[in-house]
């Protein structure tokens, strides 16, 4: 075999500086200013949420650093306080520090928004992959089931599930996962259907790749880009639904302050002190906007057709 060296004609060996696919994507992502701004906002939110829940710091890191109060300590002598140095966002109906509650609420909202995506990825990803890969009656069965689930109004279905499981963090989590997987299943199925016809999949089969390896090494990595984008767009949707549920009174239970709970609390006294609603609403809006910008940026960055 070694004798074969040089039997082929020498060709151009100049190849540009090596760049991995993910590095390429990151370079493209960085060019999108809105997406980078979104990423910065999300990082700030995560730091806020993390500080509010840091173990070993009663009342949260922000209280110890005197940046905010305690999210749970009531002070009935100081309700509906206007923003001041001591309470930068004022206090709520029970005299609790509003900023501390917004920070604490970030941890609940972000956790729900992000963790639910893993459940969606698991349910929607497996159903879509199975439907696309096996095709035939399996595809038909799974996709008709998906259509049926898709046909229910989202919020109504979440309400039904939460009502069935009883209101808690985990029941919201499961309910959101059980309702919002349909889009991803359809997306993954479509991706797999088109990737399955590619010559590199035939080539992999030709070189003896087993079905499981084919899925794991070729179908999954190649369908990942749009999936990541969809999941990113799913984060604000889940946060919004959680807020809506809490607003309707069947989400997170007080005194845990998710942003939805805070909006509902403040809604009662909206004319007395509109800041009660405005601050958590701004938090929800900023988070949704940021994730949407990130999703937009990722969509462009992960599209292999986009040249640098």
């Amino acid at each position: 075999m070694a004798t074969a060296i040089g039997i082929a004609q020498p060709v151009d060996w100049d190849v540009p500086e090596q760049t991995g696919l993910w590095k390429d994507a990151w370079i493209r992502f960085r060019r999108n200013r809105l997406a980078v701004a979104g990423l910065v906002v999300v990082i700030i939110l995560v730091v806020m949420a993390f500080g509010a829940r840091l173990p070993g710091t009663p009342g949260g890191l922000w209280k110890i650093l005197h940046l905010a109060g305690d999210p749970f300590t009531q002070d009935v002598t100081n309700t509906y306080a206007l923003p001041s140095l001591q309470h930068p966002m004022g206090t709520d109906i029970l005299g609790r520090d509003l900023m501390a509650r917004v920070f604490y609420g970030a941890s609940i909202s972000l956790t729900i928004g992000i963790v639910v995506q893993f459940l969606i990825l698991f349910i929607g990803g497996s159903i879509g992959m199975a439907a696309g890969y096996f095709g035939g009656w399996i595809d038909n069965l799974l996709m008709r089931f998906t259509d049926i689930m898709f046909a229910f109004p989202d919020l109504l279905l979440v309400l039904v599930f939460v009502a069935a499981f009883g209101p808690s963090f985990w029941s919201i989590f499961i309910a959101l996962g059980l309702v919002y997987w349909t889009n991803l299943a359809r997306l993954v199925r479509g991706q797999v259907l088109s990737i399955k016809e590619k010559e590199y999949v035939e080539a992999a089969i030709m070189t003896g790749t087993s079905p499981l390896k084919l899925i794991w090494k070729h179908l999954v990595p190649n369908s990942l880009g749009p999936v990541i984008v969809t999941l990113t767009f799913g984060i604000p949707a889940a946060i919004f639904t959680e807020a809506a549920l809490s607003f309707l009174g069947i989400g997170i239970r007080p005194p845990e302050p998710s942003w939805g709970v805070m909006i509902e609390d403040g809604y009662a006294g909206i004319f007395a002190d509109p800041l009660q609603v405005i601050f958590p609403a701004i938090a929800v809006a900023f988070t949704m906007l940021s994730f949407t910008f990130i999703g937009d940026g990722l969509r462009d960055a992960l599209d292999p057709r986009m040249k640098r």
Partner: protein
Amino acid sequence: MQATEKAPVTSVKADPVLLRVQGAFKHFPISGLGGLSVRAVDGVDLEIRRGETLGLVGESGCGKSTLARLITALLPVTAGKIILDGQDITRLRGRKLRRVRRKMQMIFQDPFASLDPRMTVGGILQEPLDNFGIGSGSDRTRRVQELLRLVGLNPNFNNRYPHEFSGGQRQRIGIARALAVNPSFIVCDEAVSALDVSIQAQIINLLQDLQNEFNLTYLFIAHDLAVVRHLSDRIAVMYLGKVVETADRNDIYDRPQHPYTKALLSSIPVPDPVVERDRAPISLKGEIPSPVNPPSGCRFHPRCPIARAPGVCSEVEPLLEPHGARDQSAACHFAGQA
């Protein structure tokens, strides 16, 4: 198991034919049209001998690529048999089928679609080695570099991604992948059609060098007769799902028996402006008919310059029978005329 497997191997060593296609059919049903189907491959018999290159030519849509996928068992046959090295591979599934693939590989048409964009070149070339358990960890890395060198690429490119390479370089990677498992038979499905003419020549030379080096057998599919002529020992011409003529390379170019072959040959431009100006290429009437509902009798009769229709050509289907030179067959009632 060893003994039962060894026995046929020794007996077929004497068999000069490596691959037999016997009455292969592939019909793709059209859903919603009650029983209608696209008859992509409609009764093909073919033999490929050890060490030779069989060129398979025909217009786009005549079933060449489908036939390639039947031979490589990427698609199941509707009917018929594919026999590789004395073993009927048409009913094999799973692990047994995978084992057959060590003997038979494929080089694909589109170098931009045939390499997984998410894998490094090293990963692509190592996949077959991993799948068949060839060599140990460090052996495989060495083998990958050896394969790259073999096809004229820098062996240190193994950690690069396909998008960093040109079309010709990618096709070399595809060839290296096909060689990874040391196959004896390689199907080249329009392996050079997507490349520039100058690159085509490089790849064709590479394929020839590799054939001499490793005693490979090729099925070389193309729609370009000039390329096929350069590379093939024998040539088969396909029309609408059937083989209409087979012969040695020189016989088919010097004395084509089937009018379709003649028309194909006359479409090759002559690299001499004086000859080319006065040449009158045979232009066929109409288009290639639909493979859903092929013409009666001889499938070529509606476009054939010598057909007697209505008559024997539109009523009786001609068989592939010896005509002209030794080893030459044509499926035409009036073979050699016109």
